């Protein structure tokens, strides 16, 4: 999984959580909550969906890493790539 694919995976999750939002024009560097309506419960939803869909556990102290699509990709990419590898070898 590439970093761009991680961004797409996060956008897919956000599309489920915030279905009224237009995600096409999201700036990858800007904070998500400054661009679309996302509150703390929504961020918990993102964390939950990452766990369900990709088996990725994001500890509470790392929630700040999910601020923008770019920071999501930077933080999640190693974990999601590792999960992908495990699945391939399973």
């Amino acid at each position, binding site marked *: 999984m590439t970093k761009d694919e991680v961004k797409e995976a996060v956008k897919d999750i956000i599309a489920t959580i*915030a279905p*009224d939002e237009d995600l096409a024009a999201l700036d990858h560097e800007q904070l998500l909550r400054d661009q679309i309506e996302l509150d703390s*419960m929504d961020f*918990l939803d993102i964390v*939950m969906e990452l766990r369900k869909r990709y088996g990725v556990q994001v500890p509470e102290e790392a929630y700040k890493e999910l601020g923008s699509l770019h920071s999501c990709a930077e933080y999640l990419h190693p974990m999601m790539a590792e999960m992908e590898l495990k699945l391939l070898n399973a």
Partner: protein
Amino acid sequence: MPDLPRIVITGIGLASPNGNDLGEYRRNLLAGVSGVQPYEIRYFGKTVAGICHFEATRYQSRKTLRRGTRAGSVAIYCANEAVKDAGIDLDVVGRHRVGVYVGTTEHGNVETEEQIYEVSQYGYDLSYWSHHHNPRTVANNPAGEVTLNMGITGPHYAVGGACAGGNLGIIQGAQMLQLGEVDMAVCGGVSESIHTFGIFASFKAEGALGENSDPTRVSRPFDKSRNGIVVSEGGCLYTLERYEDAVRRGARIYAELAGWHVNSDAADFVLPLPERQQQCMEAALQRSGMGPEDIHIVSTHATSTPLGDIQECGAVRAVFGNSRTTNINNTKSYIGHTMGAAGAIELAGNLPSLLDGVVHPTINVEELDPECDMPGLVLNEPRNVGKVDTILNLSFGMLGINSALVVKRV
């Protein structure tokens, strides 16, 4: 009710299995159109249910629909429709002077079952349990979702009253208006019960779940072959105001709440007690300053169970058996049992009778059970009685809670 302000109904919002507003609902009641359909639910399998088809996104974003509950969504739809129907500007009333009182049979079963199923897909690992569970399952959820949606800052809570919940919500709203706690009440009842498999399984285990090859004929109170309840979802919320306030703002008034009574059987978890139901009706009549002959429609609670219908009919017969001016009907024969919404939604179906003088019938009665027979029953065909001035609305629930609400033309 001397020395207390008069309370009137000025707006109605409803979601019924056979209608998304009062006009459609009433037309279908007079045309004999059922809202019961085939239905299937996890673990339980195939059954029937009364299913609503209102446009939830009329008043909610898709995000809030996802975050909230079905009961909350039903309540939001009904509350917005009621306020619109009443022609009230909440800013003029004062949003802090509006109270939301929503009757429910139960709340939280749907959401709890869903979460247990969800974690079962992950080996019962509770780290997959949703952070939305608590706000979805608190008892005030349906009323609270209304305040969030409409920016109402007055009191809100649910009135848990089993299947009497709808009547109790209305009564609570009226009482808060009489006490001066609020200047407008949005009140009634809602149900999301068709989304919990447990309610179907429990009624089945009690031998109280209805069956028939034709879904529209499963709910058949008073019919000799009736064999149980149809579980339904739905809601009905009213705007109530003090009579003087409603007149001052030139509101259309549907009816005045003439009186009510609530009591308890103190007898059994499930089985009703006809003597106490009778006492409840008589006390409501007394408080309304009326006798049996003054009541033109009795809207029965009867749920289509073999024993419950007989017991209720015994109680109604004891009060109204000698009245030649009382017509008796039942709305569950069309829409099934909308549980916490039942009292409110069944009253709404009868309110247009105050205008058109027509009483909608109990449908699906092919052979009247002699033990349910009594003078005044309106069966299968609407009855034009010319003038209807009053309605007695009955709603009873498990643990032996009884409610009787009298409304009259203003």
